[in-house]
């Protein structure tokens, strides 16, 4: 060391060093916690599920699927967008209403109702389903996905959900 240049030694030195390290970790951690939370929380937020009304349940003819749509407000970060979703509603012979997600469980195309053959058909890879949603033909790994639904005061209510495609089981996204 140069002439006249001094530096603390021994326990004095180690006190300075240790305190400095302690202080920097303290500042580091108190910043890291809020900042990491800030960045990751929106990524793991689930969409809010609300009961959406599809209209009067009485109007549904038995055994005749009906494409029904409703408009909902979707919140995407700070933006709110209005989207219209279409679903298939079928009044089964026992009077209960099944609501199918409009998305084919194979790879996510939109399927249609074939009036002549009385079957749901997917144009993409040819999956075919009957009125109950059971797979009749094609590569579909599972029956059509049903959505939670209920009837209140004659109104058909549904909760919109999406599921992973291509799996044998229905797994919510």
């Amino acid at each position, binding site marked *: 060391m140069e002439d006249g*240049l001094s530096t603390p030694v021994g326990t004095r030195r180690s006190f300075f060093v240790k305190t400095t390290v302690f202080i920097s970790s303290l500042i580091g951690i108190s*910043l890291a916690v809020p900042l990491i939370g*800030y960045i990751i929380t929106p990524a793991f937020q689930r969409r809010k599920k609300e009961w959406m009304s599809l209209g009067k349940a009485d109007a549904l003819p038995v055994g005749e699927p009906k494409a029904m749509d409703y408009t909902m407000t979707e919140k995407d970060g*700070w933006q709110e967008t209005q989207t219209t979703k279409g679903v298939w509603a079928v009044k089964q012979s026992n009077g209960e209403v099944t609501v199918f997600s409009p998305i084919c469980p194979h790879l996510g195309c939109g399927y249609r109702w074939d009036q002549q053959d009385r079957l749901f058909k997917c144009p993409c890879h040819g999956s075919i389903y009957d009125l109950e949603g059971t797979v009749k033909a094609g590569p579909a790994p599972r029956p059509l996905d049903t959505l939670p639904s209920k009837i209140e005061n004659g109104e058909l209510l549904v909760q919109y959900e999406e599921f992973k495609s291509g799996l044998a089981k229905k797994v919510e996204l």
Partner: protein
Amino acid sequence: MASRLYQWIDQRLKLKPLEQTLLNEPIPGGASWNYIFGSATLFLFGLQALTGMFLMVYYVPATDHAYDTVQYIQHEVWGGWFVRGLHHWGASAVMMAIGLHMLQVFFDGAYKRPRELMWFVGIILLAIMLGFGFTGYLLPWDQNAYWATQVGINMVGSVPLIGDFLVKILRGGETLGALTISRFFAIHVAFLPAAIMFGIMLHLFILRRVGPAGPHDEAKAKAGSETFYPRQVFMDAVVMLVVFGIVSLLAFSVEFPLADRADPSDHSFIPVPEWYFLFFYQLLKYAPGAWGPLATWLLPTLFFTGLLLLPFLDRNPERQPSSRRVVLGAGLGFLIIVFGLLSISLRDLYAVPKRDPSVVRGIALVEQFHCKTCHRIHGEGVNVAPDLSFVADRRPDRDWHLQHFKDPQSVSPGSFMPKFPLNDKQLNDLTNYILTLKSE
């Protein structure tokens, strides 16, 4: 473990000599609490950079989204209010740290030969920091942001000959709008950071070339030097912790409010600049008529030129305060003026009773719909319909008023008050105003 890793890297990158130069820099006269201002400034700048990057994650610099995204950060993202608070209070703190740093350098005569260049770069750094403050203020796109920036830009417009040209460049067009916010954003997060990084590096480079000034007392400086590490580093760290503690405490406990969304048509809004511009704001009140434009551009120009030239104006090599009476006296005079103006301004600001902006809009509605052609309010207007001066004493019920404005007959049958076409916001503003009409 850590030392094994260090050894491994050291064998490859030869870090030892680097460590020597970085940490064993001699501090003339030893480490001291006097030298913490520079590192406090650097620390706060780092904090601003870090929180700024995180704010950018959700912020959108567009007139139709900026306000919503700031709301989103403030109210919806986990910890968002804290990150925004740190950035806001950090901005104030960094200005204060710079002020103290400059005062210390000024008092100690540390700007004198051979450190003129360091002072010079320091003044440029100060200007860049003010640029950060000015461009950042607009970004939330609330009323305060909009109108304060309007004022700031108009001040630039008072520069002779090129004023109009500069204003257009700043705004990016005829009016303050989409093009302004996007260029202020780019300046705030890209141009200025690039410039300031370069400036800080230069400032530190010069510091290392000429060495720290040390105490102005020759005898003390001669007594010997101490290495920068570990004692000065320890002192700096303690100060950083204190500064960080204060800023986080403020961010934690004092919410930085967001005014209403910027509304270019609402001329009733009175913006207030950040406190570090307040003394200047106050000064302008004393610049009558033709002096106004001169004060808005000539004074700042003189101020900055004076600062830049200080080391060349003050050629006395002596650093002892006792032999620099004139310069120190001038500095003190300047401080007294600044703080005098600041306190007058603060006193005035607190003297003005703060009115809820919604109530102010309510008052405007009363004028707009000529309510006083029938009603009397505190001595103004006509007594055809009930006097409203203390109406909230009689009717403190908010819903009643809302209903009443929508359809007067429905709540007071036989009333001849007409229905007014008010939207929900107007109804709300008007009711807020009416409910303030009570005796106290």
